[in-house]
């Protein structure tokens, strides 16, 4: 007995929202990066679940690419966080707010 696909969706929505919640409430850049990872993985849950739902492997393959891209993104992200720290002596994303309006 397979689990109904709606529940995968619900799970992924929950993961997505948790990641988003982290982004919205926390100001630490690294937490931000981690939260983004959560959100990307929420998508992966969907992809894998619906790969099974439709009986094709497309979703699974794509989820692999998503992971790879997540890694690349974090690489750049960490680089930016580094220079952020050097310039602002902090990794609080809300501190870097000199440009506005």
């Amino acid at each position, binding site marked *: 007995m397979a689990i109904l696909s709606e529940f995968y969706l619900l799970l992924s929505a929950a993961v997505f929202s948790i990641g*988003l919640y982290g982004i*919205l409430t926390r100001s630490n850049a690294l937490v931000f990066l981690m939260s983004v990872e959560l959100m990307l993985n929420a998508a992966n849950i969907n992809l894998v679940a619906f790969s099974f739902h439709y009986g094709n492997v497309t979703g699974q393959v794509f989820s692999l690419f998503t992971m790879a891209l997540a890694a690349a993104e974090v690489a750049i992200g960490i680089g930016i966080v580094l220079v952020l720290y050097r310039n602002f002596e902090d990794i609080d*994303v809300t501190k870097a*707010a000199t440009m*506005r*309006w």
Partner: protein
Amino acid sequence: MAGVYDFVPAVALLPFLAFVVSLFAGEYMPKRGAEAGIIATAGSLALSVWTLLTVAGITGPATSFNENLYTWVAGGEGAVTLNFGILVDPLSALMLVIVSLIAFLVHVFSLGYMNDEGETGLPRYYAGLGLFSASMLAFVFSNNLLMAFMFFELVGLCSYLLIGFWFREAAPPSAAKKAFLVTRFGDYFFLIGVVGVFATFGTGLFAPVEGAETLASFPELAEEALAGSAEEAGVNTFGYDPGTWFTILGLLVLGGVVGKSAQFPLHTWLPDAMEGPTPVSALIHAATMVAAGVYLVARMYGFYALSPTALAVIALIGGFTALFAATMGVVKQELKQVLAYSTISQYGYMMLALGAGGYTAAVFHLTTHAVFKALLFLGAGSVIIAMHHEENMWTMGGLRDRMPVTYYTFLSGSLALAGIVPFAGFWSKDEVLFEALIHGLGSEGAIGTLLLVGYAMGLVAVFFTAFYTFRMVFLTFHGEPRTDTARDPEPVRWNVKGPLTVLGIGAATVGFINMVPVAEVTGREIDYLHKWLAHGDISVTTTEHYGELLHTFAGVDPAELGPVAPGAVSLVLALAGVGAAWKLYNVPDPEEHTDKLGGAKTVLMHNYYLDEFQVWLATGVTVPLARAADKFDQGVVDGVVNGISSVSLFGGSRFRRIQSGVVTNYATLMTLSLVLLLVVFVVAGGVV
């Protein structure tokens, strides 16, 4: 036929050339441009006389002339064609002579009044005179209403230029402005009338043009429309009854007449216009600008004769103005002011005559008035030269002995003005009153009553006219000199005396062309002017035809009454006026009896507060209105424009605050908009 008619345009063109020459070359001429003007007006006079003789049939068979010469604008199908053309008939031929004669004399007189006094800017002066004469002459021979209007306006321009000749002083430019503005106000109605006439009839011709196909004149078309149906005559009456519509048009045109001929209530500019050089005043009052209005009514009399209402209005305006202006003339202290009011008054008589069906009388009075009023102004100019440009009569006195030529010619003019037999004014004024009386008596209904009212006012005015005229004469020339200047006036030269003499003789004799009472009494046919105007090559501009029209359409008919008794009445009144003046002012040391008038004097001195009223209209109504409009424009109309921009920019400056600089806030906003979009487009299923 290369006859005199081919040269008629030159009557106006010669003074125009003089204008050009004086303007550009006057600086280099010994008399600063006067030469050109004198030669040109002399030429015009000669041509005019020749024309008159031709029309009279003295050089050949009596003819008239009416042709379009020049297409100003051709509108093509469905639109009227606007032409310039020349109409020479007895009326215009006579007027041409009068105008060119006066213009010539004024030019000569100006040598004495302007050149000898060492005025500067003379080329401008003579250029103005030239243009003035040219415009008036062209106006006189215009064969259609539009052309007439155009030169009518040019006359107004010239009056502006000449009244404001001494522009460095404060008063003349103001007077010039007033003259133009007030007449412009009248011309506004005139212009509507012109447009209306063309729109109604498709033509503005005063008289039909004979040619390959005859072009009908608008009075004829109006006559046809009244007689038959408007559609048949091809007349568009804009949904009105033809009679009503023609009355409206006539009254609109009359607006211009009232303005230019200084009739009540648009007469206020004329006394102010005395700020101009005196020869200019002579020209304006005698032959050009002011005469233009009355001439216009005479010119299109065939149209007015169709409308009893218009006639009654003309007569009433005329009669009232005659009396009204005469009363104001009684209290004036300046020589020229008195003359100014007398002009208004006299033109009122002409209007009265026209309104009362006395076409010939009006033309007669126009003629005699041209002569004696020009004389009086030039005489006044002579006095002013003598008095070193002092115009107040109370500073004069006793000039009779020191300047006899001026005195006797002036006296001749005054007698004419006062209407003392046998001077010119008597005959013409008498006829005006006579015509008003007989038509008032002879016409049925309201028009008859109204004409009688006009007559009554005119009759009363006779007394006042004689009174103020001789008050003026006595104060100026009789008694003891009241100032040193009056004791030792500056002598005047031939160029002043010459024109005075010519006109002085004229003022005494010109009335003989139409001595109706004498003709009546003696039974001899010496009413030459009647004959002159009664017949003509162009039948629709003859008094015969006008008489028919008056009878048929306006219901104006003469009563059977001899001219002698009414003439005697007015003569008695005139003599009474002279006598009163004699009694009061022909004393060595006259007093200002006007003080006895009390409050009435104040009212009269202020010209019944009409100036004040008109100034109030301009500065008390129009200017505040304009200011209010300006405030509205700046505040509301422009305010909305600027407001939109301010609101946008303010909105922008608030709007950009969304970009708070904190990336977490961005994320929140992004999330919220995502939620919003989802709610609208997914949960609710779209906008609609």
